[in-house]
């Protein structure tokens, strides 16, 4: 029999795994568009990366593990797993599919070494969390599902808080120079935003401090009344959409939004524990 708590967790799982599935499809497709990087003349050629220290896999197996065909196979597995996760209800495929995505994250981070970003890290976190929550639903064990929720929400809170704390420690951010500096680059910038920011130093300082303040205050979402917490998460979602538009950080949207259902469940648990519900 599904309890009310389990129903909330099942809803959380559906939203989270759908967003995880979307990220898995996008990230795998973008790596497949970059297969030239893995070839003998590419930036991630195995002939150089095999020289890395602390590679524990024997050289004979490493040769196959680093091959372009293995990369393709892993990415196709990620795509298939992502497609299964888009099924809009909890089902027995969720556990193996999320584990498959998790293993593909480990493989890609090891194979590429360079080129990974925060979306890959959060994708790995969400895949691990979805695997634990799915296992909890299969076992009908509320505590197992709760540990999956703790994993996702805990890493989300850490991610935002640490991002804010690292910025407040930086004079470039505190003085408002980070925004025009980043916007002036072709890699992460935007011509319109760069010209707009160049003439408005006070606005840049305000945006930098707004970013620092909101990121550092993210843990308070766990204590806020549900309506305020949802409104705050909508603002953070807008933040990610604006980063995608202005900075080209398209892949961050999906795994970071995927953490929000777990954050809301953690909000409910924390408020319940304190006695505010």
């Amino acid at each position, binding site marked *: 029999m599904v309890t009310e708590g389990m129903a909330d967790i099942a809803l959380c799982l559906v939203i989270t795994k759908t967003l995880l599935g979307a990220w898995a499809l996008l990230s795998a497709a973008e790596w497949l568009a970059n297969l030239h990087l893995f070839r003998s003349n590419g930036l991630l050629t195995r002939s150089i990366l095999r020289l890395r220290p602390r590679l524990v896999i024997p050289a004979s197996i490493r040769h196959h593990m680093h091959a372009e065909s293995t990369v393709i196979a892993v990415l196709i597995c990620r795509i298939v797993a992502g497609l299964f996760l888009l099924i809009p209800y909890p089902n027995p495929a969720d556990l193996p599919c999320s584990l498959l995505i998790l293993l593909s994250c480990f493989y890609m981070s090891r194979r590429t070494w360079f080129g990974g970003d925060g979306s890959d890290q959060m994708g790995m976190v969400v895949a691990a969390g979805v695997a634990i929550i799915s296992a909890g639903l299969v076992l009908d064990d509320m505590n197992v599902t709760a540990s999956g929720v703790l994993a996702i929400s805990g890493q989300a809170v850490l991610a935002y808080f*640490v991002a804010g704390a690292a910025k407040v420690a930086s004079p470039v951010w505190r003085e408002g120079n980070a925004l025009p500096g980043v916007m002036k680059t072709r890699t992460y910038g935007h011509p319109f935003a760069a010209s707009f920011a160049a003439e408005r130093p006070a606005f840049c300082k305000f945006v930098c401090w707004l970013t620092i303040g909101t990121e550092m205050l993210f843990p308070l979402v766990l204590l806020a009344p549900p309506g305020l917490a949802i409104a705050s998460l909508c603002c953070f979602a807008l933040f990610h959409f604006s980063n995608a538009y202005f900075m080209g950080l398209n892949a961050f949207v999906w795994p970071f939004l995927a953490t929000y259902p777990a954050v809301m469940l953690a909000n409910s648990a924390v408020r319940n524990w304190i006695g505010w519900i």
Partner: protein
Amino acid sequence: MSWVSILLYSTVTLWLAITLLAQHSRFQSVINRFNGLHVIPRWTFFAPNPGVRDYHLVIRERYRDGRLTDWRSVPVYPPRPKLAYVWNPQKRASKILTDAIQAIKLLLKRDDVGPSGLPFTVPYLLLLHYAAHAVPAEPDAVEFQFAIIEATGHFERELECSFLSSFHSRW
């Protein structure tokens, strides 16, 4: 509470605690030793030093008689597509270049590597190997070197050479 859930709670709590420690530079070298699969994430996005420069690779060659060619750009990644907020595969190549260059800068500061040990490191060899293959060799050129150019600005570009490699044999 089942033993499975106790084990999972303990593992997740430990994971979160190590993640928090890993954000501080004091613990990073120890944690990185055991973090080959990047299980411990780093959440310090664009901080403390945000990337305010674009990186480019350039290459020039030396003929047998000592003459040098002009610098030529090494194509690493095309410009960002207009729909980058939806589809942006180019970011991978630019991130690989940025990561390799950041690693080179760190290795140059290390006492056990420095300028003399740098040519034997993986980030240096990656850029060297890529530069050598991405730009066709000039006929009769016997050696080449690469340089890292840092740039800023969308229209009026400010350029600065931040690293110059030694000459290496073409063959």
